[in-house]
């Protein structure tokens, strides 16, 4: 079975977010980029399923400029077999979705796995768009994924519960915990990753449909009002009379 795992290159979760002085761009200076944490679930699960099936391939795909290659190599070190980078700035979700859909179609992939959402842009939409572009089902967000032959059984999170969904290949799923324990690269993986194929292709299709015109940070808090522990009950009065939230 052929797995395609889409990974996004995002600022590390500890990043303090700042913007350029005109507020038009994210300030990348000094920021460490990582594989989007949700995408690690997709990658590890694909590798586990391939191992369980005793054959097949796991291809990682990123739409990004050359500076994403260290994280693509990391995905290869974790256990993917080969990689494709679409050489373009990921302008928006629709642009990215078209690139993924075209590669998925040309490569005849059976299972297309993604993360739940990118932690930078928080679109939660690329997986639905790819499913629609290919005319196949998308299950998002999935907490569990098992395969038996060409049929997958997934648990899909819904507000307040979960659904059990069955789909046949090909399909798209976006992954989140507790699907698996994301793997980290070992020494052997890092060594072999260097020689695994990484193909760079140019983008196709239409341009973006959305554009960021400005960024802003949330307003700073006014400072905390401390209430002594002995008179904790006072807090409740403040929440009612001053903050008016209860």
């Amino acid at each position, binding site marked *: 079975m052929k797995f395609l795992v889409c990974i996004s290159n995002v600022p590390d979760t500890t990043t303090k977010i700042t913007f350029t002085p005109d507020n038009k761009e994210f300030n990348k200076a000094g920021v460490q980029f990582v594989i989007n944490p949700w995408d690690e679930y997709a990658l590890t699960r694909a590798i586990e399923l391939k191992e369980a099936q005793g054959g097949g391939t796991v291809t990682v795909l990123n739409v990004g400029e050359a500076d994403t290659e260290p994280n693509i190599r990391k995905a290869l070190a974790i256990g993917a077999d080969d990689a494709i980078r679409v050489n373009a700035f990921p302008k928006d979700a629709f642009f990215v979705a078209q690139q993924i859909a075209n590669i998925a179609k040309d490569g005849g992939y059976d299972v297309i796995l993604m993360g739940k959402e990118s932690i930078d842009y928080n679109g939660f939409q690329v997986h639905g768009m790819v499913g629609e572009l290919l005319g196949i089902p998308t299950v998002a967000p999935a907490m569990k994924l098992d395969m038996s032959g060409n049929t997958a059984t997934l648990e899909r999170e819904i507000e307040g519960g979960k659904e059990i969904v069955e789909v046949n290949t090909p399909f798209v799923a976006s992954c989140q*915990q507790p699907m698996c324990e994301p793997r980290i690269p070992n020494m052997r993986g890092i060594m072999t990753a260097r020689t695994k194929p990484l193909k760079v292709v140019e983008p196709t299709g239409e341009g973006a449909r959305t*554009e960021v015109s400005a960024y802003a940070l949330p307003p700073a808090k006014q400072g905390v009002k401390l209430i002594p*522990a002995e008179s904790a009950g006072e807090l409740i009065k403040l929440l009612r009379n001053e903050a008016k939230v209860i």
Partner: protein
Amino acid sequence: MSVLVVVECDGGEVKKSSLEVASYGSQVAQLLGTSATAVAVGEATEANLAKLGEQGITKVLYDAEPRLKDFVNGAYTKLIAAAAQQEDAKVIVLANSNIGAAVGSRLSVRLQASLATNVVELPKTDGSSFTVKRGAFSGKAFADVTLAGERKIIAVKKNSIEALHEAGKTAEVVSFSAQLSDADFADAPKQVVMQDQAGGILLPEADKVVSGGRGMKGPENWKLIEDLAQALGAATACSKPVSDVDWRPHHEHVGQTGITVSPNLYIACGISGAIQHLAGVNSSKVIVVINKDPEAPFFKAADYGIVGDVFDVLPKLTQAVKELG
């Protein structure tokens, strides 16, 4: 031309987030000089749908097909696309929920529309350009996004828009059929499993949340959290390490890699306030922190704080809420 609003219903009731979405849609319609029509999905009653007039909706389309009671991506997408065509919708508004986002992303491709998710404010438009403000960087920032093209789809973040309540106004409920066939239900769930929710309040929809971290010491102490939550009518939540070690279920985990919440009140008990945790909660209107360490970073992000032991403070708070009556 019109604005189409997607309203999610459950057990006959319109979800709170959908009341917000309806209010958002009717205000967009006003901006554009048109009216707002809703299309309802899930299990609804005619009386509750008519009440959407209070949120400024003039007409509600409803397909009573029983298989639409639970979410089916294929069927919901087709239904909403048909409604959008019939109503010549230029703007479609839905909730940034697991249903809204799944349908919205497919619709954007099918209807060749531009899409913004996680939207927190009404759009700014001068007739030609159309800009919305959305949350980005997992709660750490906002982005103004310009949407191109004839058609736009907006997924509104929960708890960011005040629902309108114009008492007495009613919407006309019209039956609607998208002529769905068996094939449209091919991706129907085999089974739906709902969790036991403390007090029946869903965390993503809650306007008050009481949350516990590793400072609670163990799952056996969660009664203190639940008691306060129950007294307040709040949902319960937790930090990531707490759900990682199974003290609490995964769906209660808030933060950058969990659920993002923006309730009116978030009470953090024994949570240090790591940047990944703050990202998921810092758009809450009022944040209360209870921590025995005065240096805990969470105090910097809080409105009210108590430096103290949760085991001592929580029962006092619960008692004080009960005394409020």
